[in-house]
């Protein structure tokens, strides 16, 4: 897992310390680097945590309770620069804390979406995992249910191909109505809002490509292994490469619309006096821009370029 730099809110720090102590108890001695990697935080955060915990413990009226009340780390080992954490005494926080109701809910909801995209064996694993996590919550009913629509069949197939490192062949309907057969090294599946995408290396175009799963007409799981060497650069979060999205437009919309277009990765450039947002958005073409304004017809307005405004207006009257 790539180390994600956490925004360190106070709740993040409290949660990290509560979780770090039981981990260190089980794994000490362990290096700062390994600990940081395990929790997906920077080494500095772990070093700060150890330095802070060293002076913490349960309190009584005269301060931290002495003798048995404090954390004990081997600070010599820690300071020697080897970066090892050796913990010999933990007066508190020895156990992994339970998940809160909302924490449990977010994990369970994510698992339901993941399940929809998974092949049968993984579904079984997820089902038993859902039972375990629900049991840990201690209450049966949750105030949240997530029932994803069944994804297009290529998603489940691609998900299996990814875990096996195999290629797939698809017939893809291009937005203009033409069809192409492509061999793909599938690398990642994205579910964004309500749309499933398949990302991979396209051997027809010899480039990274993002495919809408609902445009995949047929698919075939190949026995050949993927040939892409590096998958690293596919892990970036932006769905589309800048090269796919050559049309740069300025658009405006009420602020409440914004969350529903966030998959277009819009950049905020201004706010109007009435509170509307002015954004820069990249489109792959006019069709793509039309789809964008149709997310909330009438609420989303392209301001520039003029040629795109005209094309959208033309599209809106030419129908039928």
């Amino acid at each position, binding site marked *: *897992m790539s180390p994600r730099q956490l925004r360190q809110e106070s*709740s*993040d*720090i*409290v*949660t990290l310390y509560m*979780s770090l*102590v*039981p*981990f260190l108890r089980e*794994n000490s001695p362990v290096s700062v680097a390994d600990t940081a990697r*395990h*929790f997906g935080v920077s080494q500095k955060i772990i070093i700060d945590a150890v330095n802070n915990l060293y002076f913490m*413990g349960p*309190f009584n009226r005269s*301060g931290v309770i002495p003798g048995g009340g404090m954390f004990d780390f081997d600070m010599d080992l820690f300071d020697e620069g080897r970066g090892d954490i050796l913990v010999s005494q933990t007066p*508190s926080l020895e156990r*992994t*804390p339970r*998940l*809160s109701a909302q*924490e449990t809910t*977010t994990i369970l909801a*994510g698992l339901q979406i*993941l399940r929809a995209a*998974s092949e049968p064996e993984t579904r079984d*694993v997820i089902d038993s995992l859902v039972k*375990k996590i629900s049991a*840990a919550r201690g209450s049966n009913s*949750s*105030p949240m*249910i*997530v*029932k*994803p*629509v069944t994804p297009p069949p290529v998603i489940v197939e691609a998900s299996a191909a*990814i875990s096996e*490192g195999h290629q797939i062949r698809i017939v893809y*309907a291009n937005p203009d*109505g033409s069809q192409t057969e492509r061999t793909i090294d599938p690398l*990642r*599946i*994205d579910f*964004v*809002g309500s749309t499933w995408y398949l990302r991979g290396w396209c051997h027809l175009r010899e480039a990274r490509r993002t495919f809408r*799963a609902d445009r*995949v007409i047929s698919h075939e799981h190949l026995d050949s292994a993927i040939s892409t060497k590096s998958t690293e650069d596919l892990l970036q979060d932006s769905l589309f490469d800048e090269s796919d999205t050559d049309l740069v437009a300025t658009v405006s919309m009420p602020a*409440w619309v*914004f969350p529903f277009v966030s*998959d277009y990765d819009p950049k905020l450039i201004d706010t109007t006096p009435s509170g509307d947002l002015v954004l820069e958005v990249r489109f792959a073409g006019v069709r793509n821009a*039309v789809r964008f*304004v*149709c*997310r909330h*017809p*009438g609420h989303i*307005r392209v301001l520039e370029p003029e040629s795109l405004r*005209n094309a959208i207006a033309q599209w*809106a009257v030419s*129908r039928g």
Partner: protein
Amino acid sequence: MAVSGSGVTREKRLLGMIMTLLYYPHGLTKNELFACLEGYSEKFNSLRPSETDQGLERQFSRDKSELRRLGIPIETVSEYEALNDNQATRYVIRESEYEFPKDILFSAQELSLIERAADAWREGSMGRESRHALTKLRSLGLPADESRVGVSLSFNTSGDVFERVQEAIDESKSIDFSYLKPDSSTPEQRKVLPLALLFRFNQWHMYSFDLTREDFRTFLISRIISVPRLGSVVEFSQSGKDFAQILASEVNRLYSENVAIVEADLNSDAFVRLRSMFGEPWDDGAFRINFSDLALLADQLSEFGHMIRASSPASLQSELDARFARIYDAHSGGAE
């Protein structure tokens, strides 16, 4: 770290409270906590015996709710209940309630699935909750199976609406918000007690008790156009029901009752995608599409423009035409 007025960071204060309450199995009264906790004691010990301080009280109440939000079960135990004397209320964290159940263990594969499930929220306002869940579960020790990235998920829940609704459900509080019905252009002010959330048919639905209309109402999160304002705790006589299940059957009923009939040009982009979403067209060449709300369906179908024709319900095509007219109006003539 954010430093509060007393020079003690909020996180140190919260951690001190957790450690201290875990240390005393019978708990402590508020004054006992104030007297010993860093971040409280500096001010508290300078007060006269019977004096109270509003700032300390407020800070304590904020800290308590923050800890509860983090899943730390602070209970209050009253020894002299009949006297209703706040001073005698003891605050307790029971280790058995604090601790993640010892008998639940995860495999590396399971942990990697949890990592990906948590990632679904990374861009939304619930990112914090899923981040915390991950941190806690990682403390169980096992490294996740990193073999392949596979599936990445992202709900469209950025913005504060979703988080505020969650918070209100969690704390049984009312919310106020402006709501734009799918078929309307004038927002309404609503005041409800939210009860459950459902993601179904690619929409977040909120089930709630409407405090003005005194009845249950279902809302679409995507149509809440102001950040909900949290109100006070509502005593609700029917709490304890499985409202998420009630909402799920309600939404299912709506979708099964309403069917639209839509034709698409053969092999057009619309045809390919409608077939992928709603299955093969019937013998008459038209797709059958279940929906809950006509205006919402028209929003969803509008991007297909002239590639589709709606024959049923009768008003669907005119709803579509109205949208094309709105898009035309927004894009004809010079930009403002």
